[in-house]
């Protein structure tokens, strides 16, 4: 197959030298199979070795290579140059997140939020080996399974207008993972996680735009996780007065 060429416009920003980001255009040869990530790798290998971006697995598993392609959050490994030809591409770092350099963003805020929701099973009581495995029915597994598919790629944070307006908002992925553990039959940590859900920066920062679920490459539905927890937060708000003292706090 003969090789065609496409223009890739890339946002460049080196905080040590540049006062503000600028764009640089590269001409990149591509074939039917060339992913956008491979296009960037061509630039780094052949045209400008200083171009900075994150990637690892090249197959939608690691969640490292999320960027804005023509303004839409995408994993660059599963977007293909052929789909943008004969137009050009503008590649920018994920929206709403601080730029570390060029296309790499600073993930600290998300990682702290992820830690805050205690993303692991908090058992009711410690089990010994003699107790055997914790069994789940297929229905119990189904309740949390899709939310466990999250790969922390942050496309949903780039998609979320509320996170863009106020980065205090816990955001889609962290809430989806919070819901993943809360809805696991082996977990008893819901009461510990509720204060995060109940805050204005928890579920109440969301206005159900739903773009997070649209851009998720793994079919997770964070908008559903957030809005299901609006119900649980509302129940918690009103029924805390009826529950035994200290039960819901």
């Amino acid at each position, binding site marked *: 197959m003969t090789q065609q060429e496409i223009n890739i416009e890339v946002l460049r920003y080196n905080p040590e030298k540049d006062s503000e980001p600028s764009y640089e255009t590269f001409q990149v040869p591509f074939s039917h199979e060339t992913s956008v990530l491979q296009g960037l790798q061509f630039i780094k290998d052949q045209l400008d070795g200083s171009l900075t971006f994150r990637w690892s697995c090249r197959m939608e598993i690691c969640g490292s290579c999320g960027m804005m392609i023509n303004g839409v959050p995408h994993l660059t490994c599963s977007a293909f140059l052929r789909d943008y030809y004969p137009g050009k591409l503008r590649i920018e770092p994920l929206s709403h997140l601080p730029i570390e350099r060029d296309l790499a963003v600073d993930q600290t805020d998300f990682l702290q939020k992820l830690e805050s929701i205690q993303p692991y099973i908090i058992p009711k009581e410690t089990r010994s080996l003699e107790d055997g495995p914790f069994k789940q029915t297929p229905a119990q597994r189904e309740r949390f399974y899709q939310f466990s598919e999250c790969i922390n790629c942050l496309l949903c944070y780039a998609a979320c207008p*509320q996170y863009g*307006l106020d980065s205090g908002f*816990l955001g889609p992925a962290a809430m989806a993972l919070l819901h993943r553990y809360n809805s696991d039959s082996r977990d008893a940590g819901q009461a510990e996680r509720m204060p995060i859900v*109940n*805050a204005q920066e928890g579920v109440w920062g969301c206005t159900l735009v739903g773009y997070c679920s649209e851009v998720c490459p793994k079919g997770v539905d964070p908008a559903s996780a957030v809005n299901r927890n*609006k119900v649980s937060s509302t129940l*918690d*708000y009103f029924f805390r007065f009826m529950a035994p003292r200290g039960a819901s706090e």
Partner: protein
Amino acid sequence: MSKQMPKRSNEPVFWALFGAGGVLAAFVLPALILITGLAGPMGVPSADVLSYQRVSAFAASWPGAFFLFLVISLSLWHAFHRIYHALHELGVHRGLPVVRVLCYGVALAGTLLTAFLLAAG
């Protein structure tokens, strides 16, 4: 995010009213628009179905007044909650107490006015 306990939001109160109003807006309002806006004026099923006497008697009865109160009040809470959040998206931020007071104030005033008129009528 700090380690200290985040403050509980009062949003569930407004969200519950918004949700209740949303159900009404989705299921009851279209039927009401059909009845009062189209069928009634066109004389279906009869010309006097929406006559003043009939509607006034409906509003004066307890079930009728209760129904009207719910439809009017909850629709207001629904609408102003949505407007409040839409304003935030347009850059009028919800941190501002004046926006909050204005939006929910109109819904509250509408609720009180409806209750007063229905009780007085």
